């Protein structure tokens, strides 16, 4: 049993002296947290931008009453409009332009609809919320002024409102942010796979390539313990990568002003432990899969291209999970990869999968790992693998 640790320690030392592998580990652990941080800050910027708008106005002199009303609204600033409003919006020089018609003053005085134009570009994602804000301000001015006119004629303004529409948003603030939280499980799983990969392939395909497998197998150690030691080293690196990603991710999240987005950052110690418990079973399995696959490769490079393809297996469902969160489907939990996505999404969303989910995921992962390791042990005894270079 001690020999398992002898093998693991050697692979660990060897693996961590590999500069390229270290760079891979470093960048792959930083990658996810940085993207999530970037997305949250973009989200925050847009939110803030929609609240504070600068309104370029052409012909403001025609409608002093509207301008005064707009300026009194919070976060609104009136600036002079461009010469050619349509061209300016088309070329994205202005987000939108408000044009006040020459006849505004006359029609307004006569209590007839006073014409204004909003020039905007609906294909521009980033300006959409600002245009919405302007439109709702204009509607509010219209309703308010119309109401005052009715009152002055002795009519209740309520008469013109046949409906009273209230918008009740069912998506909680957390769920809105969960859209971005949905990226987190994918990055944790990717970190597991990328961090375990260098050792998993160097200790199998790498041994074959160097011709060091034959002398290694001459030592009096059962092949199964040899495989177990290599797996332990790769699994340790995978978990280390995942832990690094998770701690950087949590640091980034705690630095972001999530509250301003109406999102509560409710990730405390219990959530972190649950996240670890949810992802760890995959940490057993992923190096076993990678080792098994890499055994078929004759060189480190060849194994890297196999393992690169293998990365599709965790990332594809991860991308799908961003758009179709796999919540409320407990039967997914024991399925490797899918289970991790489902459980992590639920934990980040403030829900807790039951103990059965964690046990089920662990049992399935342990069984699959054992099967893969015994297959890898067989490969290590195969004459084609030992001598086929």
């Amino acid at each position: 049993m001690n020999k398992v640790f002898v093998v693991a320690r050697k692979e660990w030392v060897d693996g961590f002296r590999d500069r390229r592998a270290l760079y891979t580990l470093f960048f792959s652990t930083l990658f996810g947290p940085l993207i999530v941080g970037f997305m949250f800050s973009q989200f925050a910027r847009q939110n803030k931008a929609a609240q504070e708008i600068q309104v370029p106005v052409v012909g403001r002199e025609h409608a002093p009453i509207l301008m005064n009303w707009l300026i009194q609204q919070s976060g609104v600033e009136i600036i002079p409009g461009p010469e050619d409003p349509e061209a300016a919006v088309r070329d994205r020089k202005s987000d939108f332009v408000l044009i006040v018609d020459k006849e505004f003053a006359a029609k307004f005085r006569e209590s007839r609809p006073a014409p204004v134009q909003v020039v905007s570009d609906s294909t521009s994602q980033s300006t959409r919320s600002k245009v919405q804000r302007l439109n709702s301000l204009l509607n509010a001015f219209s309703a308010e002024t119309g109401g005052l006119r009715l009152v002055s004629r002795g009519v209740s303004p309520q008469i013109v409102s046949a409906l009273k529409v209230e918008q009740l948003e069912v998506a909680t603030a957390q769920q809105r942010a969960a859209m971005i939280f949905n990226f987190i499980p994918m990055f944790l799983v990717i970190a597991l796979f990328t961090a375990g990969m260098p050792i998993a392939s160097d200790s199998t395909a790498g041994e074959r390539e160097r011709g060091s497998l034959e002398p290694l197998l001459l030592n009096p150690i059962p092949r199964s313990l040899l495989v177990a030691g290599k797996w332990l080293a790769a699994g340790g690196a995978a978990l280390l990568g995942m832990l690094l990603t998770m701690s950087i991710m949590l640091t980034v999240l705690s630095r972001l002003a999530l509250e301003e987005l109406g999102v509560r950052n409710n990730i405390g110690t219990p959530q972190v432990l649950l996240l670890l418990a949810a992802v760890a079973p995959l940490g057993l399995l992923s190096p076993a899969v990678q080792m098994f696959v890499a055994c078929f490769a004759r060189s480190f490079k060849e194994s890297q291209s196999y393992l690169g393809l293998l990365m599709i297996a965790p990332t594809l469902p991860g991308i799908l999970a961003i758009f179709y969160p796999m919540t409320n489907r407990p039967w997914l939990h024991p399925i490797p990869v899918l289970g991790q996505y489902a459980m992590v999404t639920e934990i980040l969303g403030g829900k807790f999968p039951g103990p059965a989910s964690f046990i089920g995921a662990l049992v399935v992962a342990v069984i699959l790992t054992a099967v893969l390791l015994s297959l890898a042990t067989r490969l290590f005894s195969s004459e084609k693998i030992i001598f086929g270079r």
Partner: protein
Amino acid sequence: MIAARNLHKAFGSVVAADSVSFSAPDGAVTGLLGPNGAGKTTSLRMIYGLLKPAGGQVEIDGLDIAANPLAAQSRIGVLPDISGLYARLTAREHIRYFGELHGLSRAEIDRRTAEWIGILDLSGIIDRRVAGFSHGERTKVAIARALIHNPQNILLDEPTNGLDVMSTRAVREIIRHLRSQGRCVVFSSHVMQEVSALCDRIVVMGHGRVVAEGTAEELLAQTGMASLEDAFVSLVGPQGEAE
């Protein structure tokens, strides 16, 4: 003491070893001599237990290697045909790794490493990573690593292949040193002079078979030739001339 009996191995339709039998006694150097492709490496691989013979039996000090692979392997030290090293580990770490896999204590490993540093003149390179090592330096590390557990039986597959004069001399010194300690040494080579200079007994192989076995004098008497080289050619046939 190594005994091979009727070893047989084929790869597809190519018969690599056909009823290979020979024995190698303790306190002697046994040379496996034959041209490339004669079945030397295949036979050695069956003896050290990494190739499974299709037929036949191997005994290491009376232990059947198929039945007791781990016990038998701890009684042999092997320098295989290709003995790859780990570029990012130092020479000392290589030796320590194999020592630990043999279950030796740290103190024992340190003591024997110090011995090997003396025998192989490794002091200048022992704590350097093997990445920039010359072929000779690599072979020395591979030998120390393979023999760290003081095995009674030693198998060397073309140990001097590609070595310069000084390194070849060093390897020959080690082989003589091991014989003087009463070990059983088997080494393969296709170089006539090396075999005749070092070996107490010669096993001549050709086409996957053992074609002759004995001391140099016995081989000369058997073939009626004046030189070992002529004896070799007459035993192995035209295939040997290509070498």
